[in-house]
């Protein structure tokens, strides 16, 4: 199922998707109207250029086949925002991969670049001011950044789909939810109204909405926050994507509902074998669902590792700090939480050297000058990588082991 191709026939933007001015809606976001079509077509990377502009065209019926189970391979991604205040380097060389059935968590604090990474992968970056200025995003061996917008549209929604951070406000309040789900099938598959509505009922059942058939005509306000999130998930998986990107899917929800939604995503993944990219700042959620973790800070990956080893022995000072600073549910520790002092850097004025240096308790001379440390595989474990000059320093490793026990010292 993951490598099936579903080219989208007919009009790609439903007429009414843009009808309401306040509607930032999902139909719009999944079919993605015009917006990102870029006029220039030479991939240059400095000055007043337009970033990477794709021109390659694929046949609409291109068969997307994962290469050895690998769905996605992002390499050295660079994104900048050109604002009046200056150039904000939001993403500075991010690389990761995603396989079938795998859950990759991108973990990072507010503003670290998680959503922008997702937008670049989806090809829905806000341009201007945002530009992809380097790197590649290969899906089933094809670099999406070099694809013409026309071809990229066949990928969005049908191959790679996304649940948005502000999902709860992105349903259109004036249309019944069933209709909004059905529209996916009408637009992308050219189905008639009755068939599309029938498919919508099926999907609502798939995301475990009780009494789906009776509620297919209900409006968004008649559903609770958790139910609306299920509907957003239904729309995101409607076309059986091979990759689902979920941007903070449970941040606005209570823990009881959050647990239901995470269970649901897991079940859907087990059913379809899709790869899941889970974007979150919640260390608890990550520990419970991710296979691998990429820790992001100031638009760079600080550490990537399988979930068990990362929590058992964080190797990057930032990861160590994060794990120390979360209060634990199962024990009451000493009175002071080991907080990371200071604040994340301003992207318009990044410190030289390692971006974490102003907050790092291990920083040495080398950290303050030259280029930031590259993300490098560990010598003793090549399934892990860190971007820190002191990765093998005994004091860093020692504190990593302490942090793993919940920060008790």
């Amino acid at each position, binding site marked *: 199922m993951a490598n099936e191709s579903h080219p989208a026939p007919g009009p790609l933007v439903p007429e009414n998707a843009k009808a309401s001015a306040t509607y930032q809606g999902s139909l719009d976001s999944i079919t993605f109207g015009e917006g990102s079509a870029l006029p220039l077509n030479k991939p240059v990377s400095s000055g007043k250029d337009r970033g990477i502009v794709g021109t390659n065209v694929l046949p609409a019926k291109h068969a997307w086949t994962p290469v050895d189970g690998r769905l996605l391979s992002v390499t050295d991604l660079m994104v900048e925002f050109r604002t009046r205040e200056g150039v904000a380097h939001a993403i500075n060389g991010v690389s990761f991969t995603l396989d079938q059935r795998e859950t990759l968590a991108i973990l990072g604090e507010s503003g670290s670049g998680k959503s922008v990474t997702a937008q670049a992968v989806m090809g829905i970056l806000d341009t201007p001011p945002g530009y992809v200025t380097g790197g590649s995003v290969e899906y089933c061996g094809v670099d999406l950044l070099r694809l013409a917008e026309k071809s990229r549209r066949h990928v969005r929604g049908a191959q790679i789909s996304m649940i948005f951070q502000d999902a709860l406000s992105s349903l259109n309040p004036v249309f019944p939810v069933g209709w909004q789900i059905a529209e996916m099938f009408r637009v992308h598959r050219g189905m008639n109204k009755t068939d599309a509505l029938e498919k919508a009922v099926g999907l609502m059942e798939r995301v475990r909405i009780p009494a789906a058939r009776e509620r297919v005509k209900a409006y968004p306000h008649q559903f609770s926050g958790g139910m609306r999130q299920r509907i957003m998930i239904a729309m995101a998986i409607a076309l059986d994507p091979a990759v689902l990107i979920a941007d903070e899917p449970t941040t606005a929800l209570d823990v*009881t509902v959050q647990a239901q939604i995470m269970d649901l995503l897991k079940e859907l993944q087990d059913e379809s074998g899709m790869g899941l990219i889970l974007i979150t700042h919640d*260390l*608890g959620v990550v520990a*419970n669902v991710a296979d691998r973790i990429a820790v992001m800070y100031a638009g760079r990956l600080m550490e990537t590792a399988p979930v068990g080893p990362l929590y058992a022995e964080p190797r990057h000072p930032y990861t160590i700090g994060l794990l120390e600073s979360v209060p634990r549910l199962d024990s009451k520790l000493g*009175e002071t*939480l080991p*907080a990371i002092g200071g604040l994340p850097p301003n992207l318009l004025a990044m410190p030289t050297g390692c971006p974490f240096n102003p907050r790092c308790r291990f920083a040495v001379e080398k950290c303050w000058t030259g280029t930031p440390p590259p993300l490098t595989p560990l010598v003793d474990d090549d399934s892990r990588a860190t971007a820190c000059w002191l990765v093998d320093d005994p004091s860093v490793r020692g504190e990593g082991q302490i942090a793993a026990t919940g920060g008790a010292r």
Partner: protein
Amino acid sequence: MSADVILEARDLVKHYPIKTGIIRRTTGHVRAVDGVSFDLHAGETLGVVGESGCGKSTLGRLLMRLEEPTSGSVTFEGVDMYTQRGAAMRRLRRDIQIVFQDPYTSLNPRKTVGDIVGEPFDIHPSVAPKGSRRRKVQELLDLVGLNPEHINRYPHQFSGGQRQRIGVARGIALSPKVLICDEPVSALDVSVQAQVVNLLEQLQKDLGLAYIFIAHDLAVVRHISDRVAVMYLGKIVELGDETQIYDHPIHPYTQALLSAVPVPDPSEKGKRVQIRLTGDVPSPANPPSGCRFHTRCWLAQTLCPLAADGSGSIPPQCSQEIPELVTHDDGAGSHEAACHFARTLEA
């Protein structure tokens, strides 16, 4: 009243009328807070947890008398708060202050930090006579870890964590005895959240403040609280000290809530007891009869032999009789819970 009880809430009720139609006729009531009683001791932290909409913020506003209750009483140092007027009420207000949830919207963007933190002095000029104002405000900024020289800056020039510190500085300006913190760290990132939690604990130690700490993050609440109240649909369903609530919960709602919290430790995956509540919190405008939790209660369902076959039946007590908040055995001692069948969780 026991010696060190500083604040005493008894049967607090707040119902908001639901008005419909053109003539705005009252057609019902949202029972936001529906019979809440507890004591707050001097210098302690009482945590209040519960799902969104269960009445935590309303309770906070009632304790500040930002709203009048529908019924019930709050006694502060032996004085009945809701009967005070004029100067007597103003004096009371000095002693109970609040810090709000959202550091992005709770500060007036057109005022400088100095104006914001000094605002309480406008209402209570005797605390800081005109000449000493600026110095006082700078002391407060210093106390919460902000640069006193930034007194003329505006809120947008600060980060979220710093803005929350501004809110805390304003909250403690009048040296209150009780500080109500309504989700003070919920909008903050983990690393910054720890900074603000530490600040609150330091201030408590230095100034002897008592906190009502409202939050939905159960781990943060455990860290900071001495005692914890768990709310569901306008009522306290369990009340005990921090170890009792977290290590020996006896109310099925508390047990479900705790088991839903994802623990940041992958090696624990699959080892903890997982209780999944189905469905959502019912509307507080039309709460279930008997025990309010009965529509989602996993324990009630297991208590009825018929329930196992999916018939959904529960003991008649649960749907008919309102359980009182009373003391139950918790295996290691005893504390209060409102459940006819309160018991420790067998893992």
